[in-house]
Each structure stands twice: as C-alpha cells, then as structure tokens.
C-alpha cells in the first residue's frame, strides 16, 4: 500500500506512522461531526492534566460545502486525519515533517512552510495558535496548539495536527479532481476511484442538504438535543454535588448532535443572520458545560494532582 498510489495507502501510512510513535489509533467517532476536532478524543481529552496521544481518521460533514459533485475540490463529506498529542512534545514540528516524508513528501524537493493561522471555533468555545502547513503553495494541514477548549484553559497544552486527506492525496497522486483519486491502488478493472465511492453520495446529500432536508424536524431535533444535553449534564453530577461527574460523554454526544443539526439548518438557508449567531452561542454553551463536566470525571483528571 504505497501512499502515493492510493487514498487508502495514504491513510494506512499515516496510521502506521503515528502508531509507531505510540499514539492510540482510534476509529472514527460514530456520529456526524463537522471536523475531527469534535471527536471526544480531541475535544474532551484535550482537557485535564492526563497525557493523551491519539490519532484517527474522522469523516467530516460540512453540509454547506456540497457542490452536487460538480466542483473538483469541494465536498460536503470528506476525511480528516487527526492527531492529538498532550502535552505537545518539543519536537512536534519535526514529527509532523517526518510524517510528510513517510507519505512521500520530500522536504528537499518541496517547499514546506508554516504560515500563520490562528484557529478559533466559536461553536466549541475553543482557540489556539498555529499554522497552515503549505506544501508548494498548497495548504495540506493545520497545526494548532490548543490554548482553550470548551471554555476551559488547556493545562497542559495539546498539539493538534489535522491533515486534509483528499487534498494531500490529490497532491501526492498528482490529480486535479478529487473524484479522480485512486482509492484502492489497483489498475484497470480493479481500480476504484474516489468518485466510484463518493460521487453519488455527494450528489444525493447536496440535494438533501440544500433542497429537501426536513427543516421542521431539524428544528425539533436541535431543541431535543439541547434539552437532552442539559438533562444529562444535570443528572450526571454525583450525589447532586458539583464535585464529580458521571455522564459527560453522553451529554457531549448531544452537543455534537445539536452542532450538526445546526449546520444542516444553516445549509438549508432557514436561519437568518441574527439567529445564526444565537444558535452558535447555544451550541457553545452546551460545549462549555460539557467541558466543565468532563474535568470533573476521572479521565478529565478529577481528583488527580496535575502532572509535573
């Protein structure tokens, strides 16, 4: 499985590289999310004092970015490869560059650059500083030192690497249209392209996202998810005291749900500019409450002394 021959080869190479580093290789989170950052393995695990190194592929949904399969590089569903290293190791930039080398990007042949990009997610109540990583003028990754997530200061700070897999694959395969990517690395009749796998889905979901999604149902789902999130958060406090939390993860699932439903409503064009802001605020409030709950759980470091 050579990374420059196939999409899946690229993914497998990255997984192997980060596995060799000692990361927990997770599978995609089983919910619809807008980016790999939403996976609880990043959002929640970035909080609290415990060490955490993980890597995973995350299918990411951006309903608004759908183009009915007609745009060569815009998709409403695409893959991110996400790495989270907490605390951020001192050689994290070198680790990243070596991962590029592993997938065939030779730093003596290509022009690799770290260009300022401050990351902020209003829905997650999160921000960090870092870069877009450019390879010969193309953005291939985002690199962020998380400073705050879900309204909670990161202590210690985690480093997050997000590879845009399709772009990277297009680059190493030398392809201009995402649907032309070789997915399985075979030739002739055995060849499966990215288009074979996803083109129809892009067309169908674009129709759904822009024209047919059931707005009434989505509005209800938003409220339900919001309510459930609050309910679970409330019920999760052990003995009713705000000392230990026992249900941060299920509550956070509802926050993810609300966020995705909001993205669908937004794509459907049924949220006005002023309302838009208030929906983002509502999701952020949920995310913050989940972050607060998480740091009162065991994995969130409750009761443990901060690592040195």
């Amino acid at each position: 499985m050579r990374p420059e021959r196939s999409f899946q080869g690229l993914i497998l190479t990255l997984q192997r590289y980060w596995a060799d580093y000692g990361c927990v290789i997770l599978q995609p989170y089983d919910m619809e999310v807008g980016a790999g950052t939403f996976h609880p393995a990043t959002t929640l695990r970035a909080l609290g004092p415990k060490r955490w190194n993980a890597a995973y592929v995350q299918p990411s949904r951006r309903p608004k970015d759908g183009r009915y399969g007609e745009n060569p590089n815009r998709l409403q569903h695409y893959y991110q490869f996400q790495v989270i290293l907490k605390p951020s190791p001192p050689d994290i930039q070198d680790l990243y560059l070596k991962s590029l080398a592993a997938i065939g990007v030779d730093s003596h042949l290509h022009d690799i650059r770290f260009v300022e990009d401050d990351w902020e997610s209003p829905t997650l109540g999160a921000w960090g500083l870092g870069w877009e990583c450019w390879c010969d003028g193309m953005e291939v990754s985002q690199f962020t030192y998380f400073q705050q997530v879900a309204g909670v200061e990161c202590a210690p700070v985690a480093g997050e690497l997000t590879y845009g897999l399709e772009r990277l694959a297009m680059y190493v395969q030398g392809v201009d249209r995402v649907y032309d990517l070789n997915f399985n690395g075979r030739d002739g009749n055995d060849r499966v392209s990215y288009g074979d796998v996803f083109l129809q889905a892009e067309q169908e979901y674009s129709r759904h996202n822009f024209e047919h999604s059931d707005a009434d149902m989505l509005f209800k789902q938003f409220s339900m998810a919001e309510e459930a999130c609050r309910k679970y958060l409330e019920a999760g406090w052990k003995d009713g005291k705000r000392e230990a939390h026992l249900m941060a993860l299920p509550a956070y699932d509802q926050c993810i749900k609300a966020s995705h439903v909001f993205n669908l409503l937004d794509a459907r064009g049924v949220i006005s500019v002023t309302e838009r802001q208030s929906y983002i605020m509502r999701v952020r409030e949920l995310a913050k409450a989940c972050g607060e709950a998480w740091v009162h759980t065991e994995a969130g470091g409750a009761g443990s002394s901060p690592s040195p």
Partner: protein
Amino acid sequence: MPDLLLELFSEEIPARMQAKAADDLRRMVTDKLVAEGLVYEGAKAFATPRRLALTVHGIPARQSDLKEERKGPRVGGPDAAIQGFLKATGLASLDEAKIQRDPKKGDFYIALIEKPGRATLDALADMLPVIVRTFPWPKSMRWGERSAKPGALQWVRPLHTIIATFGIETEEPDVVKFDVAGIEAGQTTYGHRFMAPAPISVRRFEDYEAKLKAAKVVLDPQARKDIILADAKQLAFAQGFELVEDQVLLDEVAGLVEWPVVLMGSFDEAFLSIPGEVIRATIRNNQKCFVVSDPKTGKLTNKFILTANIEASDGGKAIVAGNERVIRARLSDAKFFYQTDLKTKLEDRLPKFDGIVFHEKLGTQGERIKRIERLAAEIAPLVGADVEKTKRAAHLAKADLLTEVVGEFPELQGLMGKYYALAQGEDASVAAASEEHYKPQGPADRVPSDPVSVAVALADKIDTLVGFWAIDEKPTGSKDPYALRRAALGVIRILISNDLRIPLAEAFGHAIAGFVSQDNAHVRKGVESWALPAESVRGALSSSFDAWTAGGVRVFVSDRLKVQLRDQGARHDLVDAVFALEGQDDLLMVVRRVEALGKFLDTDDGKNLLAGTKRAANILRIEEKKDGKAFDGAPDAALYSLDEEKTLAKAIDQVKAEAGAAVAKEDFAAAMSAMAKLRPAVDAFFDKVKVNDDNAAVRENRLKLLNEIRAATRAVADFSKIQD
C-alpha cells in the same frame, strides 16, 4: 567596549509580527540598559521566521559606582522610624549613620550609601529574562509540559533556544547566565530548517551572522527583500516582462522565508480573460506570489513569481509545478465567480441591500444608497455633472458589494462595479463612478475628476460625515472607526484639486434633509440637539449654516484642512484667521484666501501691517477693559488734529473700498495689494500719534480709528487669529 548578542529562536513567527517584534526587542533591551546607567554605542535588531536577534555594541563592562546620601529621622526620633530607616538603607545600626546638625529643625541621621556598580554581565542576567517574559507579542501562547502549571512562559510560538553572549572582540565572550522556563541561555542556534538543521555555536554578532549565512539563513529582513526584488525583476526581465511591484507583499514574503529562492511559474492564458486585478488579488492574497506584466501592452501576462524557502534538489521544478496547480485551481474559482457575477445585472442586486444594516442608527444599505442618489443629484449641477447620469451612477455605485468576486476579495469593491457596469452597457462616466466614488482613500490615493464621480464621491462622504456626526459617533483621539477624518479630507481634496466651489453648509443641509425624509429619528434628534429644528432644515435650507457651524462639523473640517495644508507645507495657522470671518463654507475660497494671505504676510508690508494691526488690537483690548466699553462707532473727522490721523482715516476708507471690491471679485491677491497701502499710514500713525490723548474725546476718537484698522483688515482675515 564589549558587545551583546541576543537571539531568541522559536517556531515560525507570523510574518506580520516580525518587524515590530525586532523593534520591540531593541527598544526594551536598550531602554533597560540606559535605565541601568549603561549607555551603549549602537544597536540593531533583526527578524526571520524563526528568530529574533539583537546586537548592542559598545556597552560599558561595569556600571559606574553610585554614592547616595539618604536623609533619615531626627535624632531621638521614634523607634519605628529609626528601624524603618535602618532597614531601607541596609545599615546594621545607627553607628553607621552620620548625624547632620540642624539648629533650626533639630539634628537628624544621614545614611551614606555607596553602591558599587555591578558588572554589566550580571545586570544583563537580571534584565534579559524579564524582557523575555514580558515581551509584548500581539498574541502569545503556552506549550509543552510546562503549560500544565500556572505562570508558564508565553511566547508567540514555542521558544526553543536563547543565545546571549557578552564580550569584547578579541576575547572569548561570556555567556549571560539566565534561564527562562527551562531554556538556558547559551551560544547555540540552528540554521535553515531543511538545508542546514545542525546546531551552530557562535561567539558574537559578526560570526553569528556569517555562520547563519553559511547555514542558509539571511538574517537581515532588508537583505531578504533586496534579494527577492532583484531576482524577481531579473526573472521577469529575462523573458521580456516586468514585475508588478508590491511592497506589502514583499514585506510579507520576506517574513515567510529564511533563504529566499525566487522562481517563475505560469498559468493558462485563457485565464487572462478575467480582469487583471482579480488575477492579481487571487495570486497575491491566496498564494503570496507576484504577478508579471508585459511592458508592451501594460497588461498582465500568464506568469507569476513565487518565493520558495529552499534550493530544491531538482532546481525547483516540483515546487513550480505544485504552485502552478494551486494557482490554476484558484483562478478557476475566480473565473467562475466573475462569470457568475456577469449573469446578474447590478440593479437587480439592489433589493437585497434593504435587508443589510449599514449602521443600527443610520438604517439599511438600501436607505443609504437612496440618500446618496438624492444628494448626488443636488450636488451634480454645482460640479458640472449631468444630473441623470449622476443619479444612475449613485444608484449602481455600491451594487458590486453583493457580487461573488467582491465577497472573495473585498479590496476590489468599486473596481468590479466598474467592470460589471461596463459589461452591461452603462455609460463610461456612470461605470467609472463605481470605482472613483470611494476615492481618495488615503493621502497617496488619486482624487476623482470626472464630474459624475465627483458628485457621487462628495455625496457618499458628506452623507457619512453628517450621519455619524448626528448620531454622535465622532472620532476621538486615535479612534475613528467610521473613517470620518478620511471622509472629511476626501471632501477637501476633491474640492480643492478640482477647483470646485460648493457651499458646504447647504450641502450638509441637503444631507440632513435626506435622513429626515427617511424619518430617521436618531439623526433628527441629533440635529435638533444642535438647536436647529429638523423641520426648518427641510423647509429653509438657508438656515443649514447653523448645522454646519453649530454641530461642530465645520471645526472638524477646518481642522482637517489645516492638516492638509500643513502636509503641503502651507501656513495652516491662517485657516483659523479666515474661518473666523462670517459665512465661510466654501473651502476653495478659504484656501485661496489663505494662499493670498500667506504670500502677503511674507512681504515686509504684510509683516508690518500684521504688527500694526496687532498693536492696535492690543491697545484696544487694554483700553476697552479700562473703560468697560467697546470703541466701535465711526470716528468723527472733525476731531482729527494731526495729519497722520487724517491720512490713516483716508487710507482706511480707500482700502476698505478697494479690498472689498477685490474680495467681491474673489481676487484675493488684489485685496492683499490694497491692504498693503494701509501699512505706511498705520506705521506713521503709531510713530507720531499718542492714542491716549489728555482730551477724552480725542482719545476716544483715536481708539475708534484703531478699531477701524481692525475692521478694514477683516475684509481678508481676522488678523488677531494669526500667529506671529
């Protein structure tokens, strides 16, 4: 004397922050040195994407010794005061203090403190970590293991190593011993990230800079810019083309590389059907590349110039190919946006503006466009513009704000409007106004000259000024969020450079009427607070002079005019002298008067007349105060006893008539020449005539004559407002 070398080596520093950071580092270190009594000979700071560096040369090796006497409590004073004195001065007991005799207030203790100067090396070891910890990055961050604890070091991106050496040229320098967040200062740095990543040991600035160069790092940002510019020009020239120079882009690109390697790429000629500005914005903003033009046609060619950070093993082929692919994709997007925009007529976009708020209190963009249309139509005849064309131009001027291309590249607003207007067959003047009405944007920007553009530009700016003024969103100090200074300066420059005469008070009245006709309660309230009922504005525009003056806009505009004249090297203090006259709302006439006045005051006649007038005014002020009344009646010719009085009276009459006639013809030079005739009479009067005559009637008459001098000079300016 010894020199200091300091380097702070980190992960990639944002390009836009580098220049200021280098400057801050130099300022902070040198200020602190001076505060420590260490006067240095010179300092220079540098920045690359990965390092800030500073060299300070000629620092004394030691601080000089300090001797200080400190006064203490009186002898036999309370114990607490004595203990405090001992503690503060570091004396072991009172035996070490001196006693100062003072027969009046009583004897008191004196501590003689001798503070030997410290070695500079030690002073540096104290000050440098503080500077690192308090460095004013616009945004900074924590990282790594240490970020688990409060108080972790903040830097723009993770800081890796620090070099701090101090010593003279002929000896091995000392390392300034300090550490910040576990980073110990030393002598080690690293070269280019990819081409020379090995550690480098350095002694002082000279070998530091040279070793970095050998390790593929050009330390000096200016040197990197010079390389990029020269190579880019050369690459373009070699193909018979010309680099489109771009200082802002050059600054940024030089902050993205340590070892600039300039390469040229190309794109499909078919993209040249997109307007050149769109191609440039796409290539510049998104890819940080320069564009290239053909000197024969003056238009862009299908080439671009990129600056890589590496000498690639294939000579840059893969880098060029990669950049070409990205630029191709970007230009495809831009072309798609442009073609999509062309499918919708500009006027069909207008209804959407009714749903976009311009400002909470000033209504929607749609309302604003209607007001500008209306005001521009009022202004059009005054500037020689066709009213119908002006209305059409104002109607369409903002429509491109809702196009795809402007959404993507906001800096192309106006320009795209022009292209789209031409494409839909609008008149050339109408189309040009889309772009021109935003001008002038800054002091270096072009001023519109086509009458249609001028009318729309003035309407746009006056509507902005009046609206924000009325809702009390005036600029304060350095804050001017709605760019009202720029708007006022724009009005001034358009009027002056086009020799246009507009009664501004009336124009402001029309602008207010525009808001009132839209039932804008906020503006109405604001205008009424200037003691001017908005109804009267609607009815009688003649009263709008009150709005111009009472609201304070006039002072604001005249202040801008002063700035403008000062920048041109003209005498700005004369602006007040002219504005102090009644009814000045025609800026062109104000400037003409100021010019003529300035020339006049440069002559001997002018200087002496000014002196004479001021002398008259001073005497009047004193005597008016003494008598508690003004001497403003006409003098009685029968009371003149001396020839000089008669001559002066005659000269005043003559000057009044001549200057008045000249002013009426707006011939200010002639008015000044007339003024000059007053001078000998004034001089002779002060020479020979005693104003405060013993005869009260004669005295009063002479004072009235002095008042006449003041009155006569007011034909051209209020001389009392002129600085000597």
